[in-house]
């Protein structure tokens, strides 16, 4: 006998393996049922898996009766209709109730065999023990739920953090109208790097701070909080915004963070009913001033970024605020607002300031223009603060009304 005929004989022997044995000892449970589901045949593997005797099943039980109540509902509402409609179902997940009452997770494939007239004759059901797979799926599910909870917590944390960096509404300054608007990038679920703050230093002495810490997320927020509260503390001791920026630079360098920021500061002081603003920029876009001539112009001189260099270049610039004057501080999310390849830009911003300088809430209106330009979705954080010297000093009632229109 040569080797070829030997292997042929071997394969032939395999093919002649006892079909009964192939069926009974198949590595999956195997059932045949009537189209109504009554079990007419079950292999030994199925009996081993479920612990039933053949006599308990054949002719006595339907496949659905071996399922949990939940599984029976699924069987009737999904499995059976699909089997009727398409003749097969695959990878359906069920729990079988074993003879001892224990649950056995299984995966089920089934196919209908029909007679020559197309009438269903028998349903063949293959049942795979899925205990380990189900345990793994359960772990996946728990992990998914945990991830969803963590995400929800992270979002809540981000919102809380954000609300500590952005005042919910600007405070009221006697004799000045202040409006502020903020919009985080995208869906707002990450803490942005933009911030602003408006706080009182003394009698008729206020500070508006607006800035942009590089980066986003919790790491940036830590620096943002540091910057915001450092500005508050420094402003109590230093007269000039430029001095505050120099000291802030030292604090950031000493902190050892590799994050830097840009800051625009405006110190607002009132003497004898007139207000003046002392402005200083640490690498930040210059504030815009709409003055008596009606033109909108940048004020001051841009200084160095804060938190990068040992020695920084800062300047102060004083603007007397006449009735009708408006100062606008903003972050680069405004001018860098994009539509396609086009930026919102300085010129659009100037027009927007011009147009809204006399509206009730200039900051909100400017933000709306930028968002419209970007078709609603901000690519970067946007912060805007507008300070207006009213033509007629505002009666508190008028001021109140303006405030109530603010959505925040």
């Amino acid at each position, binding site marked *: 006998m040569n080797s070829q005929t030997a292997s042929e004989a071997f394969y032939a022997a395999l093919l002649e393996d006892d079909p009964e044995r192939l069926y009974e000892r198949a590595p999956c449970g195997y059932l045949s049922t009537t*189209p109504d589901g009554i079990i007419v045949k079950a292999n030994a593997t199925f009996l081993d898996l479920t612990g039933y005797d053949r006599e308990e099943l054949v002719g006595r039980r339907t496949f659905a009766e071996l399922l949990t109540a939940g599984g029976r509902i699924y069987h*009737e*509402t*999904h499995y059976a209709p699909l089997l009727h409609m398409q003749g*097969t179902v695959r990878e*359906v997940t069920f*729990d079988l109730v074993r003879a001892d009452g224990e649950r056995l997770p299984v995966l089920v494939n089934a196919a209908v065999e029909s007679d020559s007239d197309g009438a269903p004759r028998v349903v063949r059901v293959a049942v795979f023990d899925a205990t380990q797979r189900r345990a793994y799926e*359960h772990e996946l599910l728990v992990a998914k739920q945990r991830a969803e909870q963590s995400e929800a917590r992270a979002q809540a944390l981000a919102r809380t953090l954000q609300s500590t960096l952005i005042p919910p509404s600007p405070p009221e300054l006697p004799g000045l109208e202040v409006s502020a608007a903020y919009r985080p990038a995208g869906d707002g679920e990450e803490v942005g790097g933009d911030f602003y703050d408006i706080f009182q230093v003394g009698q008729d002495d206020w500070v508006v701070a607006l800035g942009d810490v590089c980066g986003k997320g919790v790491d940036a927020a830590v620096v943002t909080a540091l910057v915001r509260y450092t500005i508050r503390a420094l402003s109590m001791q230093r007269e000039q915004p430029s001095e505050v920026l120099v000291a802030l630079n030292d604090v950031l360098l000493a902190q050892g963070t590799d994050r830097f920021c840009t800051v625009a500061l405006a110190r607002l002081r009132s003497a004898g009913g007139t207000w003046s603003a002392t402005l200083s920029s640490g690498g930040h876009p210059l504030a815009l001033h709409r003055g008596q001539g009606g033109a909108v112009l940048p004020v001051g001189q841009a200084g160095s970024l804060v938190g990068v260099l040992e020695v920084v270049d800062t300047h102060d610039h004083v603007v007397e605020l006449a009735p009708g004057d408006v100062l606008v501080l903003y972050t680069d999310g405004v001018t860098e607002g994009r539509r396609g390849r086009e930026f919102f830009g300085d010129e659009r911003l100037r027009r927007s300031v011009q147009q809204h300088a006399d509206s009730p809430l200039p900051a909100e209106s400017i933000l709306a223009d930028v968002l419209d330009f970007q078709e609603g979705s901000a690519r970067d954080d946007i912060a805007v603060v507008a300070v207006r010297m009213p033509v007629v000093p505002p009666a508190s009632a008028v001021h109140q009304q303006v405030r109530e229109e603010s959505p925040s």
Partner: protein
Amino acid sequence: MEDILARHNVTVTGRADGPPVVFAHGFGCDQHMWRFVAPAFEDAFRVILFDHAGSGSSDPSAYDAARHGSLQGYADDVLAICRALDATDVVFVGHSVSAMIGVLAEVAEPERFSSLVLVSPSPRYLDDEGYVGGFDEADIREMLDSLDSNYLGWSSTMAPVIMGNQERPELSAELTDSFCRTDPHIARRFAEVTFTSDNRADLGQVRAPVLVLQCTSDAIAPVSVGQYVADAVPHGTLVMLDATGHCPNLSAPEQTTAAIDRFVRGDALVG
């Protein structure tokens, strides 16, 4: 008006001037459930099929967690569809949970309906004192839990393979893969609304004649429940189908069709 028809994937066939018959599918699948029954009525009726919000090919926007937090929301959808089609004297044929959805719609606007056909109905799936619904709290809880814990399986289980069916070639071409495909969260909610509802008190309010079609062995709605429904409505008739399971519209379409046919055409003659 047009919107709601698109949202519910409403299809209208048969005689435009015929009396309207609305077929409503139950929990789990979609209007294809009526594939073997509805065409038999196209000769004389205006045949209206639709998918419930959150089922089949309905527009995802049609589903509203609050509105569809009770069966009344689904009944309101049925009424809105009827109004959009200007359908009156409607024969409503509802399978499974849609039986009670039809009951609620009829109670809300009795003048719109001429009769109800309730296929495998149950006004309450949970057992209660003096009432056997077929399930206890633990069963329903287990079913809902299994929706949660199984939703890896549930989400994609039935979705994919609409395979060629050589015995019924007409199916393969028509079936979309939406049959039995539901968003797992909506499926769970619909299951909860369905299996925890109790509409026994509504049955007595139904004014239209009611035909109850009941299979001899139904794991979801036992014979005693079908009998209960037929007894509780003022004008009810129970017809037993020589079929098993919960979906005679699929497993015994000829009998189902014949029973509905006798009821609605008999009515037409009498009316």
